[in-house]
């Protein structure tokens, strides 16, 4: 039990990941699916950055030069997550563009209806 209390960031991130995954799987509406993807991605970023966090240290922004390296948290995960965010944004933009085109063709955003229409055609 104390494991969960100790690093609640990781636990929170995993729960969020589960939430995102479930919304992605269950909802047939495309927009909801894309929201699910975003939740999942943010959960991963939270998990990754919380790995770099060291208690009682501050953000790695060098304001005055006196501070040595050991009173900053580990900057590597946050640097990596910058790229992760960019990747997540691009995928979402691409998915949204596609949903708009799909809406124009099938004028519904719900995947089940689209499947029904495809069966008839």
């Amino acid at each position: 039990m104390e494991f969960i209390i100790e690093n609640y960031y990781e636990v929170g991130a995993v729960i969020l990941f589960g939430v995102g995954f479930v919304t992605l799987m269950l909802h047939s509406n495309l927009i909801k699916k894309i929201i699910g993807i975003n939740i999942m991605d943010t959960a991963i970023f939270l998990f990754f950055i919380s790995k770099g966090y060291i208690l009682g240290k501050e953000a790695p922004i060098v304001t005055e030069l006196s501070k040595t390296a050991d009173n900053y948290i580990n900057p590597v995960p946050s640097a990596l997550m910058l790229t992760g965010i960019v990747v997540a944004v691009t995928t979402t933009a691409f998915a949204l563009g596609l949903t708009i085109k799909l809406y124009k063709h099938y004028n519904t955003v719900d995947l089940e209806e689209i499947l029904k229409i495809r069966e008839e055609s």
Partner: protein
Amino acid sequence: MIELIPFINILFLIIFSFTIIIIKKDKIVKFMSLISNLAVFILSIFLLIQVLDNGTLLLNLGKSSSLLGIQFYVGPMEAVLSVVFTFVMLMILWFSYSSIENEISKSRISFFYILINLLLASLLGVIYSNDLFNSYVFIEVSTLSACGLIILKDKKENIKATIKYLIMSTIGSGLVLMAIAYVYSITGHLNISSINEVIISSYQNHNNAVLIILGLFTVGLGIKSAVFPLHSWLPDAHSSAPTPASAALSALVIKVYVFMLIKVLFRMFSYEIINDFIIMDIILLLGSMGMIFGSIMAIFQKELKRMVAYSSVAQMGYIVFGIGLGTVSGTAIAVYHIIGHAVTKSSLFLISGLFIEKTSSKKIEDLKGIGKEMPITLGLFTIGAFSMVGIPILPGFISKWYLSLTCIEVGRVPLILIILASSLLNVLYYFPIIINGYFGNENLEGKIYKSKKIELKRLMPVFLLVIAMILIGAFSSRLIDLF
């Protein structure tokens, strides 16, 4: 200077793909993409010679220490793979010059070549990179460019297929990123070789964390490489994409993710550790299910491209089966099958593209009596089908042969039944096409001999692919001892 080749390869492709954005005229665009691809092909041959002479090549970009900087690890496997991939992409490009006009609208052709170059750059990136996060970024780039390639045709079913593909692969890359986060949390490194050292010493006390990592990696990369239960996006994506794109997709893109899985399983977790986790039996199960059900589903397909797409799901089953065996020779055969299958599948897809273009219908029934109209093309299709079915001397047979030998080594003899059963199933869906194409009177009357002939110039890339396939079959022993 030589050891810089992997970096130059990728840089070359990226820069060329971006310069194409500026130049909009098709003539120059085609010419430039040809040069860039040719240059990369020649460079990777140099790389192969270099690696064969003095072993694997480690190239540290950025910081000299391997801790943080991007590191390229080019062993014999990677070098051979990059040569084969660039060769196949060159042939696909050559093929696309003559056939792209009638599939995509004029304005989009330059986009096609940008995406093809980007795709090849990211594929080579995933093959070379020895750094987990770096390969994750390359995987994302390759997924997005693959989605771009599918959407270029801009018809109704294309969009639906792309949406499905995009969502499935975002789930996949999400799982992979989560796995990388877990690995980072346990080992603190991102470089595969340094992770390996940490894991060997300390994997006992992180037992279920390692299991989670393996599970996430297998499922994540499984979705992206269309392993059996997670393959539902593949048939729509591959059958609706333009022919060169679907050839590149099914021959190259799904292979790279499985190679990434091999790197993760066998280079990050070495052979001894990996075998006492149950993940190997799950992979073996996935592989064998893929082999059987992939072929069964392919039998019931009505459209040619969907059938060939399902048969690549079955062939992916072979590769995953090879990995699941968990021995060095098992992985060697998996990589050999990747090469053999890449060449065979791309030639089959290109030929089916030609069939559809000439008979202007996707259905298999309309292919009756095609043998009289396009005898050479169907001849090449037959050779490809023979390799798939496993006639000796061709690569298909050789990988089936070695797979069953490793099965006996590992002591799982009944699994050979699955391999042979699935090659029998292959016969069931490849041979009707050939038989109805060449023989049977009611198929043939009303067809003028060689009326829909494809002029040799367009058939040349497919011809070279088939010759490469036979060569791969011939030099199989040297290739396999290499890995």
